[in-house]
């Protein structure tokens, strides 16, 4: 038997020893299976395709049940993703199945952004898981895994080639999810056209570098069937929930005037192959790939974006503690710097404002000083005027006094002259 992964990992460090009897650890796979069965399984399928390609019908046919409601219209303004979760049970196996449908895909005139909501949805589920994984107190084993495990991409049965919307969308998704392209409503294509169509699709996918999901061929027990199925990709499917009597059996089929297409007839379509591969053989592998490859890629990109590295500049490996401590120090440093900057800004503003106000104060004082000076000048002038008036008054007074004196003298002289005259007159007489 080929060596197991564990054995390869152990390498030289382990010695193989023979057992001398039945120990019983060969029940380990059973123990593991029991645990999984008790825990229940979960599987999430995303169906992408234009309105009317039979996505809901195919899901109903695949899981032998009637899922959600009414068919959708063509008049959606954008692409919406509708998700429904169902609890199914088959013998003792419980499956929580989530079917996500793209509503309105391919209906718009401008389909440039059509892939975005889908990519966002897938990333959102990855992000939710990542957040849970990073929590300090986490409950991963009870976490309801909402990550998309398989993406069924419905190709319109034109018979010619893929639409550019198909290529663009699949290219955006191939590193995020396991893409299984299927040709929808393939009862519209004849067998010969179908072969050519499949070849065209496959070559277009290859030439555009789109990585679709390959059924794994590393496990011998399923390698043969998987590799044979790989050569039938993309599967051409027909879905139907209506039953028609063929012979004495009721089978799922679509009845046309010219004949009946039987869903589970491998000559009519690849439905059985799809069911076999998707559900019965590779469901677990799809889940594993989602976790080990697509999720890890998302996680790696996200962590690198956040600045995490595995080794420090000297190429020594970081321990988790060191990584977080380094982040924390960087973070604290940043905060401190911001605080410092803010303080500095305030100090600056205060200085500026102070200078402004001082300037204003100075101006004010200068203004009043100059007014004061003006006032002083005025006062001086006034004083001078006063003085000159006083001088004038004095002069006038003097003049007046002098004049009066003169007058008095004159009067006196006159009076004496008059007296003299009178005296003379008197003397005359």
């Amino acid at each position, binding site marked *: 038997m080929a060596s197991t992964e564990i054995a390869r990992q152990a390498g030289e460090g382990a010695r193989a020893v023979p057992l*001398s009897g039945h120990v019983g650890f060969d029940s380990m796979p059973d123990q593991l299976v029991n645990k999984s069965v008790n825990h229940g399984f979960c599987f999430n399928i995303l169906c992408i395709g234009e309105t009317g390609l039979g996505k809901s019908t195919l899901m109903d046919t695949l899981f032998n*049940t009637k899922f959600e409601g009414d068919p959708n219209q063509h008049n959606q303004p954008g692409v919406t993703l509708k998700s429904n979760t169902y609890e199914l049970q088959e013998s003792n196996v419980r499956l929580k199945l989530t079917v996500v449908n793209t509503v309105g895909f391919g209906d718009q005139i401008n389909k440039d952004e059509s892939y975005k909501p889908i990519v966002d949805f897938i990333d959102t589920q990855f992000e939710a898981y990542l957040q849970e994984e990073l929590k300090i107190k986490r409950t991963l084993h009870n976490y309801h895994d909402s990550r998309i495990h398989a993406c069924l991409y419905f190709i319109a049965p034109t018979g010619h080639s893929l639409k550019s919307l198909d290529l663009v969308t699949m290219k955006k998704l191939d590193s995020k999810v396991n893409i299984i392209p299927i040709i929808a409503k393939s009862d519209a294509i004849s067998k010969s056209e179908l072969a050519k169509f499949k070849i065209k699709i496959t070559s277009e996918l290859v030439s555009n570098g789109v990585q679709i999901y390959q059924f794994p061929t590393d496990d011998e027990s399923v390698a043969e069937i998987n590799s044979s199925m790989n050569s039938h990709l993309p599967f051409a499917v027909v879905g139907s929930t209506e039953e028609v009597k063929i012979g004495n059996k009721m089978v799922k089929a679509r009845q046309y005037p010219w004949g009946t297409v039987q869903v589970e007839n491998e000559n009519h379509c690849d439905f059985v192959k799809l069911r076999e591969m998707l559900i019965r053989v590779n469901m677990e592998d799809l889940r594993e790939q989602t976790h080990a490859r697509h999720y890890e890629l998302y996680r790696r990109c996200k962590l690198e974006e956040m600045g995490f590295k595995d080794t420090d500049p000297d190429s020594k490996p970081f321990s988790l503690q060191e990584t977080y401590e380094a982040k924390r120090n960087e973070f604290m440093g940043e905060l401190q710097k911001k605080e410092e900057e803010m303080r500095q800004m305030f100090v600056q503003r205060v200085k500026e404002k102070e200078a402004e106000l001082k300037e204003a104060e100075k101006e004010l004082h200068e203004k009043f000083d100059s007014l004061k000076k003006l006032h002083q000048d*005025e006062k001086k002038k006034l004083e001078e005027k006063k003085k000159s008036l006083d001088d004038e008054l004095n002069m006038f007074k003097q003049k007046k006094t002098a004049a009066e004196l003169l007058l008095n003298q004159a009067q006196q002289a006159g009076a004496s002259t008059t007296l003299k005259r009178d005296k003379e007159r008197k003397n005359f007489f």
Partner: protein
Amino acid sequence: MLPRSSALFIFGSQQQKNLEGYVGFANLPNQVYRKSVKRGFEFTLMVVGESGLGKSTLINSLFLTDLYSPEYPGPSHRIKKTVQVEQSKVLVKEGGVQLLLTIVDTPGFGDAVDNSNCWQPVIDYIDNKFEDYLNAESRVNRRQMPDSRVQCCLYFIAPSGHGLKPLDIEFMKRLHEKVNIIPLIAKADTMTPEECQQFKRQIMREIQEHKIKIYEFPETDDEEEMKFIRKIKDRLPLAVVGSNTIIEVNGKRVRGRQYPWGVAEVENGEHCDFTILRNMLIRTHMQDLKDVTNNVHYENYRSRKLAAVTYNGVDNNKNKGLTKSPLAQMEEERRDHVAKMKKMEQEMEQVFEMKVKEKLQKLRDSEAELQRRHEQMKKNLEAQHRELEEKRRQHEDERSNWEAQQRIVEQQKLDLSRTLEKNKKKKIF
């Protein structure tokens, strides 16, 4: 960090659905089985106990192989000065299932005169393995992680018949929250069944008294299984006998210990509980031991480690923050800091505004005061001016009056003198 188009996701409620036909996901357990066999299994078992208690012999008996042999001696033959913790890896295969078995033993445990802290190397070993796993799990680039965490610890109790030794209690108390402890009574063939019963009861009493949490079998819904489990629980702790030799008893070749008085058979349920131990440890509960280690003991270690790294001394959010990741915690701290800074900025802004207002007010008051004074002085001056003007006017009036008068007087005088002159002249004639 979540994409903005979450408005485009519509989640329906969960519903139970009945299948109308065989789908095939009941095959999932087989897929799991197949993959697990391909990957291989690993298990790490630790054996702890004083030397001479038959640990190596028991391991060899459990795994029906010469794990310990003259070339690879058991712990009792490798005692050094201090307690060592050493591991040996063996690869065993059975029924297509490969198991990488790591046996960790502790030569020197409990053998010194002073055994204080002889459990410390054991604790350190277990923590180191947890740390290795944590670092591997936290890397940006993760690969298939080898799991070397200790998944079960068989603790050997000496068959004294009385009770637990202080060392036993101390060890179990310190390790019961780090590893699944399965206490075993060693060399059970030295006790009679009654002595053994009593010893077991005493030990279980002491274990409960000291609130030691030994490994507990998980509850199941299966009534049969539960009955079985309850029977085992009654026989705890398991009393075991090991042997490297095969003896012929009644034509059968059995593992046993030959005494003059008979053969103690290892796999005879009436002689000892070896079979129960083997079945439980290997055949039925090996997976559960791994799960409990991963989901409980490791998670406890991890959350304690991450809380320490995140809070780094900040002790107040002990219970609140544990639902986040350290990064989310840092984000929240950053938001808090931003809010705090905003508040601080607002406060500083307010104080700044207020002070500026004060200063401006002062300036305005000062200006008003100066203005008032200036006005006052101006008024004063103007009043003085007016007074002066008035005075001048008065003076002017007076002067012009007086001058007018003087002119009259002068005129009179002139007239008089003329008259006199005339008279004089007349007189002369």
